[in-house]
């Protein structure tokens, strides 16, 4: 055996030191919990993706194609609910945050391991209730559950609402766990100015999760109460105010878009360093802009309500405040590009996704500023332009970062290398497929095609066909990734402790790490991602 592998296979690792089903189901190991979350969220992604393909097939022709209007309404709701609540929000923090955050801090565990396990089951219970609602009769409100329709819709809105409500607790617990771990369990040498940027990103995200999620919980319960008990909170015929729902919903859900994108930005900050062989340019600015985004994210929720009867005064203020986010995002983009500038770029698959991320985030963010302009949004609101805007960020950026993380940390998690060439093909297919899917949607929206309709005028068909073709490419790319990753679990080359030559702190442990992460307490004596030294990091 090659000596560099000694650390990775000779001793039992977290995967094989115990192998019973029970040892998985009752584990308190953050790494196993991360893996369980990874499996669950990938399942959600598959489900949401299936709904997405059904939508795109329906939109292949201007008239009815494979379903009627009521079914269409249900399918787009299920797509949104699954993707946003079951996949996007938990994905990066719960799966990769759980796995690598303690490793990066040099900790043996998270602060509350039992709560951490509970969060898996709470997520699973919430997801099960949501799925039950979907099977029972679905829902047709869209993922946003807007009142007053959601209080009167005859579909199974209540179980889905309550499922999302329960998932919120999982989010809160995970957030608390990460905040406490970061404060209390850092290894010697890890002062605040050395904390890896991925940890900063997860920390900022956790603060948002803890502060904002209760508001979502509250508003969902209020809708459920109004449905079940007829309390008049949002229904105007009972003296309620439907716009109040939107205030409370977006008070959570706008910051929630940063719950999705901040962890993604954290992944990018790590990967960009590892494959440019340079420490990050502007560490402090990136960390600070994370909190800038988290902070101003709380002041812009009203940009979703420009045409909901919100006061023009409110719209003006919210429009201006929304644009501030662009400044902090631009700081990050500038610093990533500056990190690559003059670096020894190694164009491996994770970096390819990072390039896709930076390009698509810029596009998505700039259209965000455009739709935050009240006068423009009157035209674009509720058209495919908005659909394209947020898919550029949620799919184009967050999903790219998810895939970057999946590839970058795959050897860390499972100790195997994936076939590079296939991964390269898949990455190119996905980035190209993404652009073909969503670029036409900007044009469609600008032509006036409304979102959430199953029919459209026939002169819009060619753009819709393009979009569906792109979606098929995306599906193909995902299928490919699924196949080669599963293949690599068994047949992939065994990975050395640090296959990418990364100096990130999480690579100071074996790959895959032992059950207690490190054999001896690690010491972090250099800056994270210090490539000025030539020897590989010591494996603790």
């Amino acid at each position: 055996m090659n000596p560099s592998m000694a650390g990775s296979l000779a001793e039992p690792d977290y995967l094989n030191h115990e192998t019973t089903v029970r040892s998985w189901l009752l584990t308190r190991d953050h790494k196993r919990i991360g893996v369980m979350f990874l499996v669950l969220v990938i399942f959600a992604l598959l489900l949401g993706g299936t709904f997405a393909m059904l939508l795109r097939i329906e939109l292949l022709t201007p008239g009815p194609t494979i379903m009627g209007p009521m079914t269409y309404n249900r399918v787009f709701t299920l797509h949104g609910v699954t993707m946003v609540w079951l996949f996007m929000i938990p994905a990066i923090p719960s799966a990769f945050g759980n796995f690598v955050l303690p490793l990066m801090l040099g900790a043996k565990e998270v602060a509350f391991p039992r709560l951490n396990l509970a969060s898996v089951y709470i997520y699973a219970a919430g997801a099960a209730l949501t799925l039950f609602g979907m099977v029972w009769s679905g829902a047709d409100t869209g993922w946003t559950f807007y009142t007053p329709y959601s209080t009167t819709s005859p579909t199974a809105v209540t179980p889905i609402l309550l499922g999302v409500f329960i998932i919120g607790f999982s989010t809160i617990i995970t957030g608390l766990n990460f905040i406490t771990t970061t404060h209390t369990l850092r290894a010697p040498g890890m002062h605040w100015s050395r904390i890896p940027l991925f940890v900063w990103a997860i920390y900022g995200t956790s603060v948002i999760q803890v502060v904002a999620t209760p508001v979502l919980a509250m508003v969902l319960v209020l809708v459920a109460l109004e449905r079940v008990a007829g309390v008049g909170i949002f229904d105007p015929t009972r003296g309620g105010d439907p716009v109040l729902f939107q205030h409370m919903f977006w008070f959570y859900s706008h910051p929630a878009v940063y719950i999705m994108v901040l962890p993604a930005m954290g992944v990018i900050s790590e990967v960009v360093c590892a494959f440019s062989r340079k420490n990050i340019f502007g560490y402090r600015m990136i960390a600070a802009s994370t909190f800038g985004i988290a902070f101003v994210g709380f002041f812009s929720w009203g940009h979703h309500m420009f045409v909901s009867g919100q006061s023009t005064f409110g719209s003006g203020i919210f429009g201006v405040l929304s644009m501030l986010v662009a400044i902090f995002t631009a700081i990050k983009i500038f610093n990533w590009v500056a990190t690559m500038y003059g670096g020894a770029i190694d164009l491996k698959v994770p970096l390819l996704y990072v390039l896709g991320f930076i390009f698509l985030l810029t596009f998505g963010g700039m259209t965000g500023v455009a739709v935050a302009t009240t006068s423009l949004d009157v035209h674009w609101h509720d058209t495919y332009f908005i659909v394209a805007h947020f898919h550029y960020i949620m799919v184009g950026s967050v999903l790219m970062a998810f895939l970057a993380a999946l590839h970058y940390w795959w050897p860390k998690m499972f100790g195997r290398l994936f076939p590079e060439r296939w991964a390269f093909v898949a990455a190119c297919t996905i980035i190209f497929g993404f652009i073909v899917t969503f670029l036409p949607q900007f044009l469609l929206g600008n032509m006036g095609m409304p979102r959430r309709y199953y029919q459209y005028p026939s002169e819009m068909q060619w753009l819709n066909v393009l979009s569906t073709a792109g979606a098929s490419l995306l599906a193909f790319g995902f299928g490919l990734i699924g196949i080669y990753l599963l293949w690599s679990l068994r047949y992939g080359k065994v990975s050395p402790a640090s296959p990418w030559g990364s100096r990130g702190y999480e690579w100071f442990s074996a790959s895959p790490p032992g059950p207690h992460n490190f054999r001896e307490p690690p010491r972090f004596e250099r800056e994270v991602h210090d490539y000025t030294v030539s020897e590989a990091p010591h494996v603790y």
Partner: protein
Amino acid sequence: MAEHGRKSVWGYVGIWGVLVVLTVATWLLGTRGHLGSWSLPVAMGIAVGKTALVAMFFMHLVEQPGARRVVFPVSALFLALLLGVSLVEAMTRVRMARPDGPKALEPARPASTRTAPPGSPTRWMGH
């Protein structure tokens, strides 16, 4: 946190006394105070003060180091942000351009669906 020393019981009794006084004050102001539209904000203000006392002394926040003490005011601030901004928005809404319609149709339309004129208290609390 067992180590916060022997605290005199009388401190807690004193705080309790203050809470009782504030409760009575709320009731008196509400029933005899004739504060009109101010009665709600005043009552809420007193309630916030009482909550702060409970959190600080009975939940021992005053004895905590800085980082943990921040949690309470930050949560209060976020709540204030949500409520404050939503109310400012609701107060600055324009009256619907749609006229109330022919008088003959009025009875069929529940009063609660009509937009009250700006400044009317029903725009805050409903009917």
